[in-house]
């Protein structure tokens, strides 16, 4: 049976198609301002890429903040449930998921069957999210894709004390003017994001193995900073960004 999952996030829309427990393909696109169109677009593009037609898809589950605007979905489920199922599908030993997306971050504790035991979300503030990193990368005129890797060249990470994005940005500007090494500032930024997320993770109670998902999982600096803070290894699958969509597709197949 072929099923699909669509995950509409604040910045990107993701689609995944699975067949009989195997991933057939995934795709990421920008959400833009119309979440409804984005769902259609990414779904159609993936169908085309895989040479499939809409009727081939037996069930479709939508997730993410835009989940309710995907009007052709059979069902909508939250990212929490979908990430849990997605992570369990990819690595069944996973017990803890840290998902850091564009506008929020969340931590999810799951059991051996992929069922959610507890979760926490930071959705009130940009600190500890992809958006925070984006703003800081811009302030430092660094390409977002290289941003995290530059942490490795820091000797003493700068201390960024503000958790507010706006204040942190001005703190960084003053660090630049004092001549602080750019890599140190960048490492400091990643540490600050990691502190925010690790506090939330500890509140729920970290259990290993830990998997990181979401767009920020592609940022090696953020992953390492989190590993340091949580004092444990964090795995990142190649499907990190589309983990929620995969979970949705798996859930669709269970219906």
């Amino acid at each position, binding site marked *: 049976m072929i099923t699909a999952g669509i995950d509409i996030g604040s910045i990107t829309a993701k689609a995944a198609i699975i067949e009989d427990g195997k991933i057939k393909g995934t795709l990421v696109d920008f959400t833009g301002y119309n979440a409804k169109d984005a769902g259609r677009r990414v779904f159609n593009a993936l169908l085309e890429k895989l040479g499939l037609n809409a009727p081939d898809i037996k069930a479709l589950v939508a997730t993410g903040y835009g989940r309710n605007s995907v009007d052709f979905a059979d069902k909508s*489920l*939250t*990212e*929490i*449930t979908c990430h849990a199922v997605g992570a369990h599908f990819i690595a069944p030993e996973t017990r803890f998921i840290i998902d850091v997306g564009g506008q929020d971050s969340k931590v999810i504790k799951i059991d051996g069957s992929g*069922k959610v035991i507890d*979760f926490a*979300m930071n*959705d009130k503030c940009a600190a500890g999210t992809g958006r925070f990193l984006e703003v800081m990368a811009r302030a430092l005129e660094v390409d977002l894709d290289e941003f995290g890797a530059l942490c490795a060249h820091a000797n003493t990470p700068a201390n960024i004390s503000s958790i507010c994005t706006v204040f942190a940005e001005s703190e960084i500007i003053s660090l630049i003017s004092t001549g602080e090494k750019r890599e140190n500032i960048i490492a400091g930024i990643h540490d600050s994001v990691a502190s925010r997320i690790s506090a939330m993770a500890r*509140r729920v109670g970290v259990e290993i193995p830990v998997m990181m998902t979401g767009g920020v999982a592609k940022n090696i600096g953020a992953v390492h900073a989190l590993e340091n803070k949580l004092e444990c290894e964090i795995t990142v699958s190649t499907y990190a960004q589309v983990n929620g969509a995969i979970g949705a597709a798996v859930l669709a197949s269970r219906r």
Partner: protein
Amino acid sequence: MTDEKKASDPRKIKSVRRMKEIMTNYYIGAKTARENGKKVAWITSGGPVEPLIAMDVIPVYPENHGAMIGATKMGVDLCEKAEEMGYSRDLCSYARADIACATINGGPIGGLPEPDFLVCCNNICGTVLKWYEVVARYYNVPLFILDTPFVHGKFTDAAKKYVIQQINEYIEFLENVCGKKADPDRMDEVGRLSVEAQRLWQKVLDAAAHKPAPISAFDAFFHLALIVTLRGTQETVDYYKGLSTEMEERIANNIAMVKNEKYRLLWDNLPVWYRTRWLSEKFASHDACLVADTYTSAWSGVLHLIDEDNFLESMAVAYSSVYINISLDMMIDTLKKMIKKYDADGLVMHSNRSCKPYSLGQYDLSRMVAKQIGIPTLIIEADMVDERSFSESQIETRIDAFMETLKA
């Protein structure tokens, strides 16, 4: 099914109409007090109102008014006005909304009637002290402060003496501002009526222990108004008698507040006044009923401490021991009892940006509940009046995710 459809929504509580009537008359009475030669006192929600009733003073509750402001979605404008006046956005939104309202006679009822004097009891928070000082200066009226020590476990003899002494001073203060002697017989009568009303209110809340629950916390938020404002009057006793009978009838006829009640949840903290309907429908769409809450039971939760034959003195101790003036260990005891009584499957905690004393400790409480009883908690970050602290899509995701977890 056809029967259910025929009647005009049987789930609606009939007493609602009567409540609206009583509250309208009450506010008309308060607004025309001056013309009728009556005195008006503003009092905090946890303050001892019985002596006011006994002295024939009309009690007015800025917090109840704050709730109305919230429910009518007038909170943001008024809060912004207060912020323009220089009050911090971190100040309780009841305080902000009410302070702003007083200066422009705005809000849903064109402002509260001016007070002749103020009664402030800090059993609910420290904010009310400063808030009432501001009001006292603004209207230039006397202020009585009843200081109730925080209860860390045991109510000590010294603390008891301390609050009883203040109750005596309170009565003296009332005699002075009202220019007449207090009548002990009348005081006893009011005390008895208050206790009776509290008992009846508890009975109404207890009805939700029945499965399916005939009343939800969202209804209790509404029917609460009288026990807050007018306990100690015959009218209040009569009202809750009627409401209690209605609950019995609902149970007998198996009328559920949530149609397919499958999950029973407990609410903690003040309501999100401008979103009660949305929240109740959201939970109902998951077949979940908020069967009880720690907030509305605050007005009857200390009933066991009141001795009708020694009302004033026992009242002093009871008022000091309300839910948010006690230690976390005592709170968890209350919570556990409620979870058991109402057979709750989960806890929904409103982390209320305004009300710090109520919200502090919620993470600890949720952890204790998970560990000791094994039920999960959902924490919703919002504010009771200031809509700027409410994000629908974020809260929706949390509720959906929590319910998916509960159902799995």
